[in-house]
């Protein structure tokens, strides 16, 4: 017994054994289940991808596309032939060099799954690889977003994998995690739901420019990064950070913001780019099969009510009338008057005028996602004030995700409305904003709006190469989307990161959660 006490005291005094390695202990925002960032768009898989893979282009903090694996490129005068040259020194973790064949295979796989990739490949006639460090893309017609697609910062990112891995069917998950990125995945230490481990790739050759967004030099200053996948209780996360048991909390709960900001030894940072809330209607079922009813709901939504309830901390949120996040190139106020002048009276009148017959709105509410859990309650209250009947149904997120894929009538398990959040890079352009896909029940994202005019405008946007014309088109697109009532943008917020004071250089661009360039002093 005495020995036991002595042992305890001894280990308490000396703590964990001192390793020579610098270890960065991160608490990610969710669990890492799927290790294939092309197969899924889940942000955790994307972040995993950024650790072990590299990309052709990246997006910097000023939202400009910058070359990463690419050394130089040329574009033919008719915009139909693009030639890219890879930079020297690119190597996979197994020692083999990165060649153009790996690149084209990776792009082809990505082009089968990612929405923007699929759109890009409709323009592509073929690709070829004239030299190991050169690849070419031949387009059927001019396309205005080639670089934006290749350098897109968020899901799904066109990560470059070895050819043999990229040849895996796009609808099956890969099983080989060899990449060419700044970290190597330590597979034998990966325990799902417990932890994921990444080691510094000592052979990686970073670019010379300073790191910026998902572009620039990817220098690594720690030896090991551990993702703590077991720590999911929000209060426990905060406690662990304060006590120094972890170094970074990727996304703190809003409730913790004020108290963590006051803690000595901890600093809280707001990312440069934020996220946007939205509520999405099911256009296939009544009552939201009528545009007038959707617009009545839009009129009742006061963005401030949502933001105050869900986020609560004023410095973390701002209202934004645009469907493309404020501060991004295509943001505008076109068509947003219906929400700007939102108030109960207006909404009530619009609802009466629409001929709404009292069909209850089945609004799905997730019980296990703090980040968006309050939105449906606010929506329900506002809609009820406008005269809607609302049936607020609570369920866990997994059930919600599978239920929203159903197009059945409500009586057979269908739905009318749900709310969610998107990271800005995933919605800031008319091409990749999934909510604007208006092909009716063939749409790529749930809700299935049908609007030929909108599709037409999007098609024009995709082909346009002139920047000013693109801006004008984006305004028309947004105006049409508001007129149709595709969805309701509910305002923007930033999800703050918290870290120990001795952690510097953490990427807070908000484009993704990125762990190169981090120093632990």
């Amino acid at each position, binding site marked *: 017994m005495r020995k036991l006490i002595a042992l305890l005291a001894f280990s308490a005094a000396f703590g964990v054994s001192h390793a020579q390695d610098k270890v960065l202990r991160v608490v990610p925002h969710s669990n890492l289940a799927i290790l294939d960032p092309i197969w899924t768009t889940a942000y955790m898989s994307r972040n995993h991808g950024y650790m072990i893979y590299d990309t052709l282009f990246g997006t910097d903090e000023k939202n400009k596309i910058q070359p990463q694996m690419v050394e130089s490129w040329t574009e033919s005068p008719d915009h139909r032939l693009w030639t890219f040259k890879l930079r020297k020194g690119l190597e996979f973790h197994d020692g083999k060099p990165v060649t153009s064949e790996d690149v084209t295979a990776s792009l082809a796989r990505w082009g089968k799954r990612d929405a923007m990739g699929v759109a890009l490949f409709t323009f592509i006639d073929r690709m070829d690889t004239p030299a190991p460090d050169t690849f070419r893309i031949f387009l059927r017609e001019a396309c205005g977003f080639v670089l934006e697609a290749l350098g897109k910062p968020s899901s799904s990112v066109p990560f470059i994998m070895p050819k043999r891995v990229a040849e895996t069917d796009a609808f099956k998950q890969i099983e080989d995690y060899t990449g060419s990125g700044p970290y190597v995945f330590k597979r034998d230490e990966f325990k799902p739901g417990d932890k994921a481990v990444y080691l510094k790739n000592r052979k990686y050759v970073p670019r010379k420019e300073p790191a910026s967004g998902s572009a620039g030099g990817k220098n690594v200053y720690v030896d090991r990064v551990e993702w703590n996948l077991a720590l999911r*209780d*929000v*209060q426990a996360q*905060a*406690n662990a950070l304060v006590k120094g048991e972890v170094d970074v909390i990727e996304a703190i*709960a809003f*409730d*913790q913001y*004020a*108290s963590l900001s006051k803690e000595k030894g901890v600093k809280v940072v707001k990312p440069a780019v934020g996220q946007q809330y939205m509520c999405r209607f099911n256009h296939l079922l009544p009552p939201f099969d009528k545009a007038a009813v959707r617009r009545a709901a839009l009129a009742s939504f006061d963005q401030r*009510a949502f933001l*105050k*309830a869900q986020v*609560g901390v004023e410095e973390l949120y701002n209202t934004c009338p645009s469907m493309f996040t404020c501060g991004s190139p295509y943001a505008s106020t076109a068509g947003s008057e219906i929400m700007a002048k939102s108030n*109960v009276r207006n909404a009530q009148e619009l609802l009466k005028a629409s001929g709404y017959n009292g069909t209850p709105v089945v609004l799905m*509410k997730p*019980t*296990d996602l*703090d980040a968006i859990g*309050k939105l449906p*309650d*606010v929506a329900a*209250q506002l809609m*009820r*004030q406008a005269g809607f009947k609302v049936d*607020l*149904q*609570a*369920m*866990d997120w997994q*059930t919600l995700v599978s239920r929203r894929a159903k197009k059945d009538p409500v009586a057979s398990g269908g739905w009318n409305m749900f709310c969610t959040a998107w990271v800005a890079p995933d919605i800031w352009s008319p091409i990749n904003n999934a909510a604007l896909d208006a092909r009716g029940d063939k749409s790529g994202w749930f809700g299935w709006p049908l609007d030929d005019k909108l599709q037409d405008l999007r098609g024009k946007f995709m082909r346009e190469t002139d920047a000013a014309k693109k801006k004008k088109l984006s305004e028309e697109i947004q105006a049409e989307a508001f007129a149709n009532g595709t969805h309701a943008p509910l305002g923007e917020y930033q999800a703050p990161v918290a870290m120990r004071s001795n952690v510097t250089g953490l990427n807070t661009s908000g484009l993704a959660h990125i762990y190169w360039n981090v120093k632990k002093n």
Partner: protein
Amino acid sequence: MATPRVFRNWSVRIGASVLVLLVFVAAAAPWLGTVDPTLFDAGSRDLVPGKAGEITTLDGEIIKHTFMMGSDSFGRDIYSRVLYGTRVSLAVGLLAATLALSFGIVFGLSAGYIRWMDGVLMRFMDGIMAIPAILIAIALVALWRGSLATVVVAIAIPEIPRVTRLVRSLVLSIREEPYVEAAVSLGTPTWKIMFRHILPNCVAPLVVQGTYICAAAILVEAILSFLGVGLPPDIPTWGNIMSEGRAQFNQYPHNIFIPGAFLAATVLAVNILGDGLRDTLDPKMAKRV
């Protein structure tokens, strides 16, 4: 006629009084200075107990209100939610205990006394007990949507095997008692033996078990809410209030302490009542009292 022995026991008095008080609160909740527990106003969120704020009604009007027990992260009045929550907690506890005891007694008697049923029943009970209670609860709530009935059934089902086992083990012991053997040899029918000789001897441990189930049911409901698989969040229950407040425990502990105190008091009362009942009802104990 003198006061029945039961009511002379202090434990029974205390436990029963508290429970009667809680039942009164549950019934009279709308008239005890509460507002609709689902109303909220984001401007009134996270108020410490005693502060005043505003609430928006469904008609859009704004009323001033003093949050005697503070507000939660939505801006809802915790006092109202706690009082209305009393209804749910009491209902869950009583219904689950009744359900579990009823089925458990029937199964336990059958298994303990009727040999050929023993094997079949106990295998079945073991099968149910082997499935973690949480899983049954989550699956049932997911299958039928969260509601009072679902949660009660989900909590009661895992308790039935336990009661069955307890009754069965007691029956196995009592079955060998001389007076039971005597009754058998006299040709007393099985059911009479079960109800007149065996069951009365089971009462004391069953009462203890029953109060334990009631108390545990109330606690399990809180745990289910903690995991996000309890009653829907717009129904105010103590468990829901605590689960929503746990993200801010360090800053606003009132979200957890206040419903937690009510929870503890209720469970305590039920347990004390059970102890008192057992002390007075168990004939053997009466000799020592």
